[in-house]
């Protein structure tokens, strides 16, 4: 069968699928009914059922979940807060929305003294007592006056007091959980999202993510590249925080958003072609009752240009909302003094005895933080007189107390610029959690009468004009560090999909969205299909494939694993492994000789055993009515097996120093920096199977996990209970790095950083150098100036 014949067969297959669903179908290529059916699919009854790949917890009908929280959903202690952005459509902004906050609080929390305060775009909207020991949901009306179309900033602050205990220790018993699965915008399911700008307000899934289903009629390299570009532009323009991509050309998948990228002839018979104009070349089909669909025609230049413009413009929203979004990607600039206000903190007074406010400080991913410099804090705060000894202000970095300042016990003090220096070594590249804490016990705490404190006066105030300043940072490129993948680089990247099946494409697309994080513009990505594309790739190549699609040498090159370890772990038996390994040799040779990008459609008939033909063979078999190797269908298999991805990755607290040399367990999937047989390096995402591959890609795409991606190899695994584990490794050779720049200043800082991390080496080196210098000095002194012996001057 020639490529043309196979293409015709594929298109015919689409029609058959449509016809088989029972709707009016026309097997003719480009049938309007068929495409319509393809786009409509089976509609889910509720939003939280859209993507079974995500946590599916009960939610009330008509409840649209919220984007991911900027922080922990548990509000602890006497004061704690969480911020996030609330996207609304123009219509919602005009009418106002109702926000449902589901919460559960500790029994110790005294309702009379505890409140949950909500502000939207800096304007107080609601304050209600915290009284939910058994869980409760509160509907809060957010008036139209405070909303603007797009993203709005929401700040939720819990102020909690203990019912009976006034000790500082008791404050650790205070907590309120925000139940994300039961929170959201009420009655948003019925909302419509008729324009590109409205897409930002699409209901999120319970974990705050969104699933986009790709519908691509023709699986060729050019079409796939166009689809990928459209996807990235759409995500960038809409501002979706956490995206899972399902690459499928059937209507069986379930998603929040369907993205159709293909020739407009595909829907020309739908009567919708006329809806696209030169001014509005992208068609957003927001038909009630089914996923919003975006149709991008590839046979005209306007849609692609429009999407590019959409991405370049970026999402919109209120000033507070956009600041909040920018903060998530905000990388601190060395030498720049930043106020706490720029991190979202506000001037605040505090009544209790254990104050804590935290924010994220993001260091550049290529930073090499060590003790060659100090982060200089200048705190502006005040406290009352009468504090008991032991009261202090502390700065906690990534969970560890790094600086403290005792508070004067017997007098009121106002500090306008109290300086605290924290060595840079306390920080790490990427996100650092900075917490400003104060312990403020006074005599009244000894004679505990909680209810008398209703009128208590503030003991402490922190000004948002407090500042911090980063020193100059050493820049290093960790050549074998996966952090570079999400480091905000703008250099072109080769995305190689050796076997462009649905799982690989989905994983690659999901992963590619992570490349754009933190960059002003989309990172140039060159798509390569087929294993042969590996050889043509540049120095930044990312290979996405299940293990069985990879040559042995690739798996054996994974740092931290012994050669063959992956095959042993992931292959059920030796015979099976041998069989699979043997089967892999043929396509590898064929791919090596096949430079074309249209791998899937140009493979010779005899080589269909290659994994790359999965999609095509399934479609052909389905079209012919013959039983397939995947009777339930490729997508059903994938989606049906998808576990609760929301908990796939707990936010790991990893840093380069904690990584081991050996991967104890390869888990289910591995992301690694490998050295290819020809000596070039590449990033490899591989998994036990396509299912795990997709889940791993989703994990990497999650912004909450992005900063934890470090080391030469990371293994993902999950237990039977559903919890997941992430383990990193530098491999036997350890981190391999080179200077980010060879400027004297950078080299000096790198050297200073290394010395700081290796104190004894520094001392030894210095003493060695000094002993040599002393010896040289002695020799020189014997040769210069006057020298005397018994006979006088020599």
């Amino acid at each position, binding site marked *: 069968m020639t490529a043309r014949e196979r293409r015709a067969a594929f298109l015919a297959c689409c029609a058959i699928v449509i016809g088989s669903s029972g709707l009016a179908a026309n097997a003719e290529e480009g049938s309007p009914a068929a495409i319509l059916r393809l786009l409509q699919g089976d509609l889910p009854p509720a939003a939280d059922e859209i993507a079974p790949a995500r946590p599916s917890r009960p939610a009330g009908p008509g409840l649209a979940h919220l984007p991911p929280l900027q922080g922990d959903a548990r509000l602890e202690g006497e004061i704690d807060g969480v911020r996030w952005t609330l996207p609304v459509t123009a219509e919602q902004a005009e009418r106002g929305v109702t926000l449902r906050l589901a919460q559960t609080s500790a029994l110790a929390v005294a309702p009379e003294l505890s409140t949950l305060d909500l502000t939207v775009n800096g304007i107080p909207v609601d304050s209600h007592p915290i009284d939910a020991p058994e869980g409760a949901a509160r509907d809060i009306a957010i008036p139209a006056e405070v909303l603007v179309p797009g993203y709005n900033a929401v700040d939720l602050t819990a102020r909690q007091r203990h019912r009976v205990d006034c000790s500082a220790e008791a404050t650790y018993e205070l907590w309120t959980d925000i139940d994300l699965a039961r929170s959201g915008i009420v009655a948003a399911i019925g909302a419509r999202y008729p324009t590109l700008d409205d897409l930002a307000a699409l209901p999120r899934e319970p974990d705050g993510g969104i699933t986009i289903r790709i519908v691509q009629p023709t699986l060729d390299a050019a079409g796939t590249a166009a689809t990928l570009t459209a996807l990235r532009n759409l995500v960038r323009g809409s501002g979706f925080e956490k995206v899972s991509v399902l690459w499928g050309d059937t209507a069986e998948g379930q998603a929040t958003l369907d993205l159709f990228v293909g020739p407009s002839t595909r829907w020309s018979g739908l009567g919708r072609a006329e809806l696209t104009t030169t001014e509005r070349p992208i068609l957003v089909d927001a038909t009630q009752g089914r996923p919003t669909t975006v149709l991008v025609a590839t046979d005209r230049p306007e849609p692609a240009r429009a999407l590019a413009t959409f991405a370049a413009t970026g999402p919109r929203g209120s000033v507070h909302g956009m600041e909040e979004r920018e903060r998530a990607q905000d990388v601190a600039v060395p030498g720049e003094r930043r106020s706490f206000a720029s991190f979202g903190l506000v001037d605040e007074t505090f009544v209790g005895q254990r104050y804590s406010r935290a924010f994220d400080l993001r260091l550049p991913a290529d930073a090499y933080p*060590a*003790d*060659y*410099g*100090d982060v200089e804090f200048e705190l502006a705060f005040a406290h009352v007189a009468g504090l008991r*000894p*032991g*009261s*202090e202000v502390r700065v906690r970095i990534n969970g560890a107390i790094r600086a403290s300042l*005792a*508070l*004067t*016990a*017997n*007098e009121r003090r106002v500090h306008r*610029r109290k*300086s605290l*220096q924290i*060595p840079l*070594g306390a920080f790490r590249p990427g996100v650092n959690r900075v917490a400003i804490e104060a312990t403020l016990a006074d005599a009244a705490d000894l004679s505990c009468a909680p209810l008398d404190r209703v009128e208590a006066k503030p003991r402490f105030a922190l000004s948002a004009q407090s500042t911090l300043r980063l020193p100059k940072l050493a820049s290093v490129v960790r050549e074998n560090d996966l952090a570079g993948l999400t480091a905000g680089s703008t250099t072109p990247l080769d995305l190689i999909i050796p076997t462009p099946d649905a799982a690989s494409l989905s994983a690659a697309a999901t992963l590619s969205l992570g490349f754009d994080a933190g960059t002003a513009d989309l990172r140039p990505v060159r798509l390569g299909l087929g294993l042969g594309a590996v050889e043509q790739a540049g120095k930044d190549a990312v290979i996405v494939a299940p293990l069985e699609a990879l040559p042995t040498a690739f798996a054996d090159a994974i740092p931290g694993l012994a050669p063959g370890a992956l095959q042993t772990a992931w292959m059920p038996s030796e015979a099976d492994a041998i069989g699979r390994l043997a089967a892999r040799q043929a396509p590898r040779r064929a791919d090596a000789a096949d430079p074309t990008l249209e791998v899937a459609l140009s493979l010779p008939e005899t080589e269909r055993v290659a994994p790359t033909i999965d999609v095509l063979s399934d479609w052909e078999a389905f079209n012919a009515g013959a039983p397939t190797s995947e009777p339930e269908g490729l997508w059903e298999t994938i989606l049906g097996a998808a576990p609760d991805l929301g908990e796939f990755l707990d936010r790991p607290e990893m840093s380069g120093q904690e990584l081991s040399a050996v991967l104890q367990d390869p888990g289910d999937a591995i992301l690694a920096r490998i050295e290819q047989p020809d000596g070039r390096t590449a990033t490899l995402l591989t998994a036990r199977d396509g299912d795990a591959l997709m889940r791993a890609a989703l994990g990497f795409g999650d912004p909450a996990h992005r900063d934890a991606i470090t080391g030469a190899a990371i293994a993902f695994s999950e237990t039977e209970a559903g919890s997941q584990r992430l383990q990193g490794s530098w491999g036997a050779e350890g981190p391999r790095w080179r200077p980010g720049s060879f400027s004297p200043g950078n080299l*000096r*800082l790198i*050297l*200073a950083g290394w*010395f*700081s*991390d*290796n*104190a*004894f080496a*520094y*001392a*030894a*080196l*210095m*003493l060695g*150098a*000094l*002993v*040599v*210098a*002393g*010896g*040289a*000095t*002695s*020799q*020189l*002194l*014997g*040769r*210069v*100036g*006057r020298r*005397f*012996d*018994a*006979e*006088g*001057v020599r």
Partner: protein
Amino acid sequence: MTRAWFAFWAGTVVVVALVATQPIGLDAQFSFGLAGLALMLTIRLLRAKGAWRSVFLVIAGAIVLRYAYWRITSTLPPVVEPIDFGFGLALVIAELYAAAMLVLNVFVVSDPATRPDERLRGAPESWPRVDVLVPSYNEDLDIVGTTLAAAKNMDYPADKLRVLLLDDGATEARLKSDDPVVRARAEARRDEMRAFAEELGVDYVARRENAHAKAGNLNAGLGRCDGDLVLVLDADHAPAADFLTRTVGHMQADPRLFLVQTPHFFLNADPLERNLGLHRRMPSECEMFYAVTQRGLDKWDAAYFCGSAALLRREALNEAGGFLGRTITEDCESALDLHARGWHSAYVDRAMVGGLQPETFDALITQRSRWAQGMMQILMLSNPVLKSGLSWPQRLGYLSAGLFWLFCFARLTFMLAPVAYIFFDLRIYVASLQEFVAYTLFFLAACLLVREQIFGAVRWPWLSEIYEYAQSPYLAWAVIRTWLNPKAPSFTVTAKGATLEEHGLSPIAWPLLGLFTLLAVTTGFGFWRVAADLHGDELLMVVTGWSVFNLLVAGVSLGVVAERRERRRFPRLEVDVEGVLTIEEAAYPVRVRDAGLGGVRVESLSGPMDVEGASTGTLTYEGTSFGCSVAMKGLNVRIAGRNGQGPAKGVGLMFDELTAVQRREIARLLYPSSERFERLRRSRQKARNFTAGTIEFALWAVYQVARGLSYVVMDVWRRLSRLQVRPAAIEGNVR
């Protein structure tokens, strides 16, 4: 080969500098500081010599460099807080000055020269002719006469030795002064001095006027003689008999040598030694300079002229146009000029003159102010760094000598900085306690170790701080005046041979009293703040500790300005010759136990002597003193120092009306050989254990504060009672 070694050395220094100026973390700094100090201590405890001495100094240099780098880059207050920044910058500059001086000193004394003896060469007929110039202004005959007599006693062919008294106290201008008192004094002085000079065989030279002070006087003397070499002796610097035999040989050995400088050795106590009761216990203050620094300078051919006890080559002086007088430190200025002309200098580390130093605190300040002003003038008018013809070591040597006098500002800054922090909460030192330990303590420890290693034998612990602090308020003003007008300072003669009839506060004590009060209040307030803020600012505790140290220094300094009574004008030297004392026709065989310019003390060899106070008689003795034959016949004496009645084993005798010959005999008895001075000098050059010295320092502080305050009360009481007691015979005239 030397170039190769220099290149290698420079390479190691560059590597060390690069590594030492890395902005490393506290752990690395702490590790290095600890390891460095441990190695320094090991070298010191093992008394390792040779290359290890250099290693010791290089490690100290690296610790200092790291501290300086850290202070500049990490501890300055932000510029946006100008008051904090200004005070912080002043403190940093003061510390950097101290660090720079340490480095300069380490360079200067990196390999002190130990010069072998250079005996006279050839037959005496071929020896160069020597003119001895003794400039005088207001010193009395007891002082000048002894110096002239000792000069005449020097072992050198009489036909090649000429002594000139350059009397600026009786110039024609003073003889014709409108002031009758000045005129009368000048006339009396001229008659007395001229007569004595003629009797002694010394040339008497008096100028028309006192132009260009000491330099002018010396140049006038140069014009009245033509010897090959010139020995300059201050009026109170009596030379030992072997002075020329130990110095002229150096001139013979090197025809391009313009100077042979020898140490100034003082027989009496300076105010600090006397008032703290440390005389003859601890090394003299000037020993730090003469026993170490001048030897270090000699290594680099940079030993310079110190105004006296130095032999100079006339040819070189003629080339320079005589002694230079642009500044009031003509000695250093002249040496600088001659070094720049390519002449060499030598330093012979053997005390060969016995001199007097200022007895009172205000006289000391007068002297030191002149030195400070003169060196500032040199820096401003003839800067050694810019002067052509000098080698770089010479430039650094002179620079070190000049910059030293800025210590007054650094010391005052160190003393007052805690006040700014404790009283006014000025953030002048941005650092944590950990940083203070890792940097500042190691820096201080390294400085102390270096000082102990280099100067330990000649300077007890904490004495430098006391000397510097006690002078600082006064010298600071003198230096500032010089900055404002470099040509304004005038030569002020230092008073010598003064006595104090009663205990009392120095008339210029009030600045130190005020500072002590301020520091005491500051320290008390600091303690109050620490106590009130138990868990408070850790830097406050450090600064309060610093203030305590300052208070101790100020407390001891209070004792320095609490002047003890001193009734003896001239110090006594131990002698041991036998003779006969005849009093009212009774002859007593006696042993002369000590002697001075004004008298002797004798002990009877045959039982108690029945003598009355103030009775007169004669003393005859004969014997040897340090290998030199001494004999005196019929020396008129008076009984002194006897309060009681009845027979006495030992009595003090005062000289009456000495003739020139008798003065020569007294001088021979006192200064027979430089060996006398050297023994005294070496006996005092003993290192003091640091811990014991520190404890003693603290005890001094307690005692001297009590003594100083009691003097304050006494002074106030005297003023109230209109019983003013003034120091006698202090005369500090200004030319």
